[in-house]
């Protein structure tokens, strides 16, 4: 299998165009932090297509080549007390592993988002523009480098979460935001059944909770911003929640708790890992039912995301996960599992009209079906 390692926009366009001309299928690879295996004629490996091409803290914008490590961007932003507000996570760090050098292209293409998504949005909400090479071998751009932009179709939304099936990202331009100067977390002991109501009440309140999660018998509610504001809001929140046993974690202790949520520490690394998107108020009841089925659970986004850990054999619990997710109005996807488990874990397909749209959109960018063959964003 031919491996292309472009190190410039021109080399990337050339490599893809060559494959397109020869009708060679391509596996698009960043740092390889997921367990995706693609059977293709060639690999477009973006690991050396790296570098920040523009960081403008005053304009709240950063642009980087797609192979740039997430960690490099986050370190640069942190040096100016800024952040990617969608709170991305290196997939290798999930379950307590060492970060695997996740690339910004991979982060965008996988629609990555951490606990802060409930208040700040996902990668799709922060991708202002991009350049890419299509399945016709053509380099093109979409969007821009400003937030307020309605010029043409919003192709950035399509590319965020497209898993490399529409084009090969060349550079991405992302919005950045000031990092909060201080944070505190309210820890509320409660069982799963009560968690949904407590999180909903907090998220509805004007104290502006930025993250809300539950695992192992406690709800975590984060408040961040300037210190005096955090203190005043924390007291308001604590008064509203008003339950015995509540505790407060400040600063690094608070941040530590949210690293735990972001990396799904509540679920052992050996489990088959599922993430389930649900209507917010269905999350806690779904999680409770799944605990009854023997799964480990972590509720994030106030209930709109539930992580499940099941046995990493057989179908990984796919039968019950999909049945219960669909019954709750949700959709489950397998994040990490043994290949044999993954082969049996596909979610039920979308309805016919939606499936037709997905197929046509994919063909609009990749008419010959050359990018990441066999990979379906619906299943990821």
């Amino acid at each position, binding site marked *: 299998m031919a491996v292309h390692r472009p190190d410039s926009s021109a080399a990337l366009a050339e490599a893809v*165009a*060559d494959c397109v*001309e*020869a*009708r060679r299928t391509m596996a698009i690879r960043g740092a390889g932090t997921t367990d995706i295996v693609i059977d293709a004629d060639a690999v477009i490996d973006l690991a050396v297509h790296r570098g920040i091409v523009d960081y403008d*803290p*005053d*304009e*709240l914008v950063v642009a980087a080549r797609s192979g740039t490590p997430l960690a490099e961007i986050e370190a640069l932003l942190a040096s100016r*007390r800024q952040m990617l507000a969608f709170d991305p996570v290196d997939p290798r760090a999930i379950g307590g592993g060492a970060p695997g050098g996740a690339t910004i292209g991979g982060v965008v293409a996988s629609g990555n988002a951490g606990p802060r998504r*409930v208040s700040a*949005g*996902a990668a799709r*909400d922060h991708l202002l523009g991009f350049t890419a090479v*299509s399945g016709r071998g*053509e380099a*093109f*751009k*979409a969007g*821009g480098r*400003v937030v*307020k*932009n309605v*010029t*043409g*179709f*919003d*192709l*950035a*939304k*399509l590319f965020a979460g497209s898993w490399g099936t529409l084009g090969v990202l060349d550079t991405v331009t992302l919005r950045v*935001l*000031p990092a*909060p*100067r201080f944070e505190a977390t309210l820890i509320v002991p409660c069982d799963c059944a009560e968690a949904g109501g407590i999180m909903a009440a907090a*998220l*509805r309140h*004007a104290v502006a909770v930025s993250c809300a999660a539950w695992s192992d018998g406690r709800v975590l509610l984060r408040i961040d911003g*300037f210190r*005096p504001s955090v203190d005043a*809001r924390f007291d*308001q929140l604590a008064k509203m929640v008003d339950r015995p046993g509540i505790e407060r974690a400040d600063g690094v202790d608070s941040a530590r708790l949210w690293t735990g949520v972001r990396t799904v520490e509540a679920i052992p690394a050996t489990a088959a890992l599922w993430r389930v*998107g*649900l*209507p*917010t*108020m269905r999350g806690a009841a779904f999680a409770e039912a799944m605990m009854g089925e023997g799964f480990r659970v972590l509720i994030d*986004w106030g209930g709109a995301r539930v992580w499940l850990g099941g046995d990493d054999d057989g179908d990984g619990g796919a039968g019950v996960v999909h049945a219960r997710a669909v019954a709750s*109005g*949700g959709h489950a*996807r397998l994040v990490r599992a043994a290949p044999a488990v993954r082969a049996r874990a596909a*979610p039920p397909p*979308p309805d016919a*009209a*939606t499936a*037709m*749209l997905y197929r046509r*959109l994919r063909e609009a960018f990749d*008419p010959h079906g050359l990018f990441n063959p066999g990979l379906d*964003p619906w299943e990821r």
Partner: protein
Amino acid sequence: MRMPEPDQSTLDRRAAIVAAMRRIVPGEGVIDSLDELRAYDCDGLTAYRQTPLVVVLPDTTEQVAAVLRWCSAEGVKVVPRGAGTSLSGGALPLADGVLLGLGKFKSILEIDPDNRAAVVQPGVTNLAISEAASGYGLYYAPDPSSQIACTIGGNVAENSGGVHCLKYGLTTHNLLGIELVLMSGEIVRVGGKGLERPGYDLLGLITGSEGLLGVVTEVTVRLLPAPEAVRALLIAFDDVAAAGQCVTDVIARGIVPAGMEIMDRPAIHAAEAFLEIGYPLDAEALLIIEVDGPEAECALLVDEITRIARNCGATMVQQSTCDEDCERFWAGRKAAFPAIGRISPDYYCVDGTIPRRCLPEMLRDMREMARRHGLRVANVFHAGDGNLHPLILYDANREGEFENAEALGAEILTRCVELGGVLTGEHGVGVEKRDLMPAMFTSVDLDQQQRVKCALDPALLLNPGKMFPTLRRCAELGREHVHHGQTRFPGLPRF
């Protein structure tokens, strides 16, 4: 402005088309008398007018689907319309097209406080959502200045903004789901009351697609807790660059205000002459900064911003102490358009975005351009996110002056793109900026966007003539591209 040539065979079939529409939408829902059709001649961009072939006002999703299915089968064009407040001609009718009005979709179906969501029909006004949610302490964040009249369906189509985008985003950041009818008549539901949607982000694609990809028949929006307090500051500078620097310094301090607005000298004078609110007439720039959130936070931020403003050389800083102050600070800005309307027979509102720091340079260039065109320009500016609204003053009764104003607008927008900005920040491309698209995109970029159009509407029947400067048939866009001017691997079979 050239629109697609009307199709004579469609014009000839008008009676049959009207009859077919009446079969689908009975009663008052089909309008075909010339007098009544005239009410739909234009939207908020009144310079362009066209009487539609027929107006259809369905009130169920099934009727919308049936209208689109019939038009699809018969090859009849369709232009969707909400409240008709578009400033870019997004709802400009076609002589040979059905105008599909969503005005009867007026119900707020559900306010769901625990999921922080509202499910509404597309004809509900933007403001009505916040009013319905207010009893629960919630509101819908995007607030385009036409929010009293514009509908959420139109907001979805145009990805509408407002003055609070820096902190709260545009429409696209505040939606959870839609029901969409494709040109084929198929009905697709996207998203719901959660945050994640599997598969390609159709919701994100449809938002801001200007009625070219589908017709939205239901919208689920995200609601936010209403802030406990809102405070504003009114800050004057004797130099526009200093006002721009103040905005930059506020952000550099880690503060994301709800809104930051700059008015230039002509806009200040027009507003003051109109309302007499006490704006300083010797100022070159007036900066309004609004912060919202918990009381404790607002008090802190107001003091911090005051300190930053003084460091930037502000000649005046007023802090609001009550809601009335807040309203007074904003009054002149919110009345900027009517205020300009008072000092000029007509005005043309331009909408581009630039990197914030280019503001002084842009204003300088704009003065020079305006002088060359012999026109006056007043500026209001969403400074937080770089969205510029130059108001070009002109007199439509003078021969050629509208064309002159339009030419100046095009020059300003082209300059926005040169400075690293974009052609439209919130008003949309529509017909107004359609022919400027090549200033920002190459033909390859535009072809790729058009292929997305082809994926959803292969016969190009939905709102054609908008957004794209050249209409290219989908079959033409599917042709093989030639690499490096020659086909490599010539031995490979081509299909």
